[in-house]
């Protein structure tokens, strides 16, 4: 499911796929094994993603899902969960 969001319903299966996609992108960005990435890990404090890094990281999601993340939403993204939830919400609309 590389081009999420595609469906209207958010079920557990979709959520799990989304989480693994988000983990994979974060892992690729911080150059760590996917297994070491936790969805509730603070991106800034524990994974070293600074404010410019957030632009770079979210750029990856924008490109992957063909979405644009507004600045005000970007500021609220502190963990992988925040990103996955935002993407899920976006998919709901």
């Amino acid at each position, binding site marked *: 499911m590389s081009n999420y969001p595609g469906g209207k319903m958010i079920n557990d299966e979709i959520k799990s796929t989304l989480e693994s996609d988000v983990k994979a992108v974060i892992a690729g960005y911080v*150059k760590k094994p996917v297994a070491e990435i936790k969805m509730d890990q603070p991106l800034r404090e524990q994974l070293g993603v600074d404010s*410019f890094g957030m*632009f770079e990281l979210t750029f990856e999601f*924008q490109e992957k899902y063909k979405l644009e993340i507004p600045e005000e939403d970007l500021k609220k993204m502190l963990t992988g969960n925040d990103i996955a939830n935002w993407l899920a919400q976006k998919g709901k609309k």
Partner: protein
Amino acid sequence: MKNDTHAKNVAKVMKRELFNRVVITGLGVVAPNGIGIDAFWGALEKGKSGIKKIKAFDASRNRCQVGGEITELEPSAYIDSKKIDRMDRYAQLGIVAGSMALADAAIKVQEGDPPPGVYIGTGLGGMLIYERSFEVLTNKGPRSIHPNAVSSSMPNSLAGHIAMDLGLKGPNIAISTACSSSSHAIGHAFDAIRCARSEMILAGGSEASLSPLTFSAFDAMRVMASDCNDSPEQASKPFDKRRGGLVLAEGAAMMVLEEFNGAMRRGAHIYAEVLGYGANSGGYHIVAPDPTGQDVVRVMRSTLRDADLLPTEIQFISAHATATQANDRVEALALKSIFGDHTKNLAISCVKSMIGHTIGAAGAFGVLAALLAINKGVIHPTINFAVPDPECDLDVTPNIARKREIQTAMINAFGFGSNNACLIIRGVK
């Protein structure tokens, strides 16, 4: 006249007292015909060309389809995978060559030491990233531009990456004067050390010009050799009557410059001393050289004056020699004008015959080639020399290397923008 001579001698003594001596103690190179100093020198000595049919992009519709492409380097073997994506290719090549130079100089940067500086010449900077970003802008729109587009395409990105990655936190300067960029970078580094503003500087140049727009833009000027698309190694023919233009190349040449006494104290290996630097402009044309060559004569003369040398004390010329008709003719004219009868005693050679024209890195490549010639007692050849040009009647060490002990070398570099730089180095016995 007597007073004049006395005044000059006093000035010489004062200069020696006031200025620090500056020496070169570490070398690094990434060239189309060799990675690392030993491979590079081995190739130069053998007259091995690094010019190939271009693979970096589809050049099949270009007039010129050959270039000095580096095909045997895997930058990820040298650069942290977290950082490599943020660098344009020119920065990757520069980091590799810079790391080699620091390792060769056996420098360990420690807290509390005066921080070494970084002076980098590049004519174009990160053009590959710039071109790709333009493609994204055209195809996908402004909001798809990568956040790193500016920081990886700007001409001082390499200098910044070197400071971050190699820990050199002194003055951090990028100089962009087309084909003379790295000669000016080395010259300014020399000035900074001799005036005691810095004790050690990593200086040189890097360029990665084999990207579709940049390459095609040079091609559009009709300055590139298009007569050897099926025999790439013969494309670059400096000073030969058949010369058909320059061959664009990528590469990086870096060196550690440091204050002489500091180098002696730490027992560094000294390759050569930098004696003089000159800079000027022809104020003539944005790309064409002044056909009289007077600006080139002036820059060589001012460099000799800076080094306190007579023309007869120069033994080797690392010529700029791009292999365009106009440039080589003017350089030959200028050399004969300033060196007169001594011209026949000069060893002259053109590294571009083997690696092509690395634009902003070209001056540093010239310095490297001269410095190695001094250290090895061998003059590398100018390859592809077959038909002499009466207007370029110089001994350019045609095709085969020649054993000759030399001490003092002059390195020329002339850039678009009517921009000239000249350096003089001498071996340290």
